[in-house]
C-alpha cells in the first residue's frame, strides 16, 4: 500500500502529522508513540526571542472543544537550535518548524536561520500581530500576507514553505490564492478560532487573557468547509487541521481535498492519536480495496489522481 504524499520538496511516508503547539518538541510524546512512524512532526511555534506566554488560567474546556491562550510561549530560536533540535535530528521523520514573528524581518531571519541549520520545512503562523502595522494580524490582510510570504521566499529558497492560514477571514479562497501566488509550497489550515467563555458565578472570563483560540471536535465542520474551499482554489497541497480525533475525521479531510492532515487537540485526549489515525487510514484503504492514499484525496469532488480500486 502506498501512503506517501508530497508537500513541496518533501516526501512524507504518510499523511499524518502533529499540529504545532499540541506536540511540544516531540520528546514529550516519546512515551506514547513511535515518532519515526509519523509522516511529519510540526513543533511548537518558535520566535526569535523566547516568549514567556500569558498568565494563567490559560485553558478551559467548552462543549466538544477547548479554549487556549498560551500566548505563544516558546524557548526562542537559539535555545531551540541548541537544546531541542539535536533530539529532533535523531528522528527518522520530517521535522517542520512552525515560526512566528512581529515583523516581516522576524520571519525572514527565522526561516533563513532554520534553512541554514538543515531544517527542511517551515510553517508560517501568520495569525500574529504585525507590530509595525498597528498590530493587525498578517493572516487577515491579503497585501501584508503576500509581502510576508514573498520576502521569506526570496531569502530562504530551498526550504519548503507552508503558510498556515487564519480562519479569521471571510474569504478563504482569496487568502489561499495569495499564499500560492506569493511562493508558498503548501498551505495548512485552520488555526484556532478566536472565542470566549465566561464563569457565570464570578462574571469573569474563564481565561486570564479574556479570549482564547477554540480547537477540538467543535471546529471540525468549519475547518472541513475551509479546507475544501482552499483545495478547490489552489494547485499546491493543502494540509487539513481542525478537530481531527480519529481516522474517520482524517479521511473526511482527505476526501475534501487535503493532501495531509495534522492532529492537534486529539493528542491531549489520546496521546497515541496520531498512530491510531494512521492505522485507521490503512484499515480503511484495505476495506475499500484502494492501494494508494492518493486514491481518496479530493474524492468528494471526483478529483482523485488515482482512483483504481481493482488492484
Amino acid at each position, binding site marked *: 500500500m502506498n501512503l506517501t504524499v508530497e508537500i513541496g520538496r518533501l516526501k512524507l511516508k504518510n499523511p499524518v502529522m502533529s499540529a504545532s503547539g499540541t506536540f511540544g518538541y516531540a520528546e514529550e510524546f516519546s512515551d506514547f508513540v513511535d515518532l519515526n512512524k509519523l509522516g511529519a512532526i510540526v513543533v511548537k511555534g518558535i520566535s526569535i526571542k523566547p516568549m*514567556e506566554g500569558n498568565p494563567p488560567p490559560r485553558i478551559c474546556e467548552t462543549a466538544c472543544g477547548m479554549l487556549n491562550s498560551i500566548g505563544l510561549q516558546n524557548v526562542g530560536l537559539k535555545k531551540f537550535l541548541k537544546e531541542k533540535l539535536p533530539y529532533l535530528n535523531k528522528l527518522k521523520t520530517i521535522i517542520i518548524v512552525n515560526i512566528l514573528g512581529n515583523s516581516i524581518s522576524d520571519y525572514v531571519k527565522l526561516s533563513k536561520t532554520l534553512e541554514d541549520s538543515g531544517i527542511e520545512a517551515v510553517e508560517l503562523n501568520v495569525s500574529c500581530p504585525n507590530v509595525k502595522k498597528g498590530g493587525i494580524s498578517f493572516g487577515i490582510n491579503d497585501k501584508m500576507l503576500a509581502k510576508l510570504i514573498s520576502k521569506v521566499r526570496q531569502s530562504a529558497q530551498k526550504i519548503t514553505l507552508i503558510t498556515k492560514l487564519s480562519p479569521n477571514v471571510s474569504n478563504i479562497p482569496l487568502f489561499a490564492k495569495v499564499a500560492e501566488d506569493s511562493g508558498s509550497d503548501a498551505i495548512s489550515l485552520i488555526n484556532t478560532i478566536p472565542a470566549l467563555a465566561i464563569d457565570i458565578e464570578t462574571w469573569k472570563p474563564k481565561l486570564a487573557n479574556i479570549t482564547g483560540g477554540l480547537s477540538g471536535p467543535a471546529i471540525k465542520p468549519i475547518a472541513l468547509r475551509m479546507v475544501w474551499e482552499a483545495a478547490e482554489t489552489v494547485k499546491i497541497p493543502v494540509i487539513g487541521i481542525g478537530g481531527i480525533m480519529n481516522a474517520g475525521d482524517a479521511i473526511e479531510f482527505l476526501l475534501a481535498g487535503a493532501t495531509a492532515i495534522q492532529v492537534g487537540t486529539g*493528542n491531549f485526549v489520546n496521546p497515541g492519536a496520531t498512530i491510531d489515525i494512521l492505522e485507521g487510514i490503512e484499515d480503511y484503504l484495505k476495506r475499500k480495496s484502494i492501494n494508494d492514499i492518493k486514491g481518496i484525496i479530493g474524492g468528494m469532488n471526483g478529483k482523485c489522481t488515482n482512483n483504481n480500486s481493482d488492484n
Partner: protein
Amino acid sequence: MSKNFRAKVINNFALNPRTFLLEIEPIEETIAPKPGQFYMIQPDSSYDPLLKRPFSYIRKSNGKIQFLCAIKGKGTRLMMNFHSNKIISMLGPFGNGYPIFKSNHISLLIAGGTGIASILSLSNEVQNKYLIYGARTRDELLLLDKIEELGDRFIVCTNDCSYGKKGMVDELLKDFISSHKDNINSIIIYACGPLPMLKAISKISAENNIKGFASLEENMACGFGACLGCAVKTKQGYQRVCKEGPVFPFKEIIW
C-alpha cells in the same frame, strides 16, 4: 509498561454528597507511582466532556489505585456514576511528586479538603511525621479511618468547630511551631489544599524559616508537558504544574 492505559473500576462510592472514593485496577502493565504524582482520568468517551481530568492518587496496593474526587462539574459528575467493572481510559503517573529526604527530620504534612488524597500518598512513605488536616465541616473531613492510626500526631480542625479544633490549618500550624521551637530547624512542611490555605502556610513558614513544599493545581489539557496550559508563575518564570510540578518549594512560587 505504558503511561496510556485502560483500567477497570473496582469500587466507587460516595463518602458525602459532594465526594466519592474511586478504586480502579489497570488492565495493562503500568508504572509505579511516587507520592504526590497524579493520573489523568477520562470521564466519558464522548467528546463532551473532552479532556481527561487530573487526580492525585491516595495509594496503590495489590495493583489497585485509589482516588478521592470532589464533584465540581461535568466530568466529576460523570465519574461519580462509574459502575464497577466499567473500563476507563487513563494516563499517568505524571508530575514530580514530593521530594523525600533521607536525613533525620520531622515531616509536617498539611492537608485541606480533598488535598488529603495527595498528602496520604506521602504519609505512607515518611517516618517521623505529624499531620494537620482541616475542612469546613465534619462532613468534609474524609478518610479519617486511614489517618487516625497516627494517634496524637494527627491534629484535625474544622472551620465551624463541628469536629476537632476550631479554626483553620494555618492557626494550627502556628500552634505547632510554637510547641516545637526547639527542633524547628528539622521541620519540613508538605502541603496540599486550596490556594488561600497554601498561601497562608507558605507565609508562616517563610516567617519561621521552615522549608516547605506545596502541591499546586491548574487547569490541564494534556497532563504530560505538551500543551503549556498548566503554567504557574515561579521565580524561574512560568513552569508547568504537570511536569516541573505539581510540587514546588514554597520559596519558588510567586503567589
